[in-house]
């Protein structure tokens, strides 16, 4: 086969010049553990955040999980495997948050988690974020992960990601006054009751999953 020949000649042409990364990996692992202990002495929450942060990074890098691709690839390539992965992740998070919120509400606390007003500002921000993410090659998590992988172009993305975030923080007061404070805060379970809210949310996610699956197969045949 042509492809085999091309590959074999290429392998001979470009001899392996890879460094052994194991010593670096061991040093980094020791550093992660030492820092976890140090953070743990300051506050246990800090240590938990540190371990979860590192774990998230590892999972993101190893799984090549990319939120940007989940929204971009269905249109660009017809690939929907990442879209389905994101929908699955949201479904699992939905079930988990439902349990956490139910327990919190039963013990008389307020609704935990970030319940924020929804309005036109979300649509404007999402569109701007989407354009930026596709041009710069990654959303927040993707940019951070590839920054760590050593992809230099994304170091530039991160620099402007910080600039943009600072600018956003600077103007946040205006948005808060102009749009956000006038928009409604919606917590579906409080509005519809838990069974109806959960059924509605899972139905929407399931519908989107079905749609993504159908779209992926349809584009495959074309």
């Amino acid at each position, binding site marked *: *086969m*042509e*492809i*085999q020949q*091309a*590959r074999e000649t*290429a*392998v001979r042409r*470009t001899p*392996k*010049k*890879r*460094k052994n*990364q194991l010593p670096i990996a061991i040093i980094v692992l020791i550093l992660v553990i030492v820092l976890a202990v140090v953070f743990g002495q300051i506050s246990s929450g800090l240590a938990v955040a540190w371990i979860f942060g590192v774990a998230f990074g590892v999972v993101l*890098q190893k799984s*090549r999980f*990319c939120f*940007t*691709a989940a929204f*971009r*690839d269905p249109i*660009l*390539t*017809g*690939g929907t*495997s990442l879209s389905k992965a994101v929908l699955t992740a949201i479904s699992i998070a939905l079930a988990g948050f439902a349990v956490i919120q139910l327990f919190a509400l039963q013990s008389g606390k307020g609704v935990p988690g970030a319940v924020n007003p929804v309005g036109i500002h979300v649509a404007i921000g999402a569109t701007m974020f989407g354009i930026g993410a*596709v041009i*710069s*090659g*990654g959303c927040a998590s*993707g940019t951070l992960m*590839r920054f760590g*992988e*050593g*992809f*230099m*172009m*994304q170091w530039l*993305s991160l620099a402007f990601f910080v600039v943009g975030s600072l600018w956003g923080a600077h103007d946040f007061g205006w948005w808060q006054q102009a749009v956000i404070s006038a928009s409604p805060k919606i917590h579906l379970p409080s509005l519809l009751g838990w069974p109806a809210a959960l059924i509605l949310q899972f139905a929407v996610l399931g519908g989107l999953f079905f749609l993504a699956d159908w779209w992926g197969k349809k*584009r*495959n045949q074309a």
Partner: protein
Amino acid sequence: MAEYRLDCLGEACPVPLLKTQKKLAELKVGDVLVVEIDHSCAMKNVPEWARKEGHPVEIEEVGDGEWEVYIEKAK
């Protein structure tokens, strides 16, 4: 049965994929396109797209975080 190389080093997703799609369209059936990439995301969507289109694909990691994707144009 020619072999073409496409340099996508330093290009972020989705640029390598768009370049691959364009380049592959110019090739003849049986030609092999070697796409050089160093963006981990392109490592996923370039082979995924090519396989979906029905072209045989192989991947070789030629250096740390540097890959060559071999695509044989099948149709």
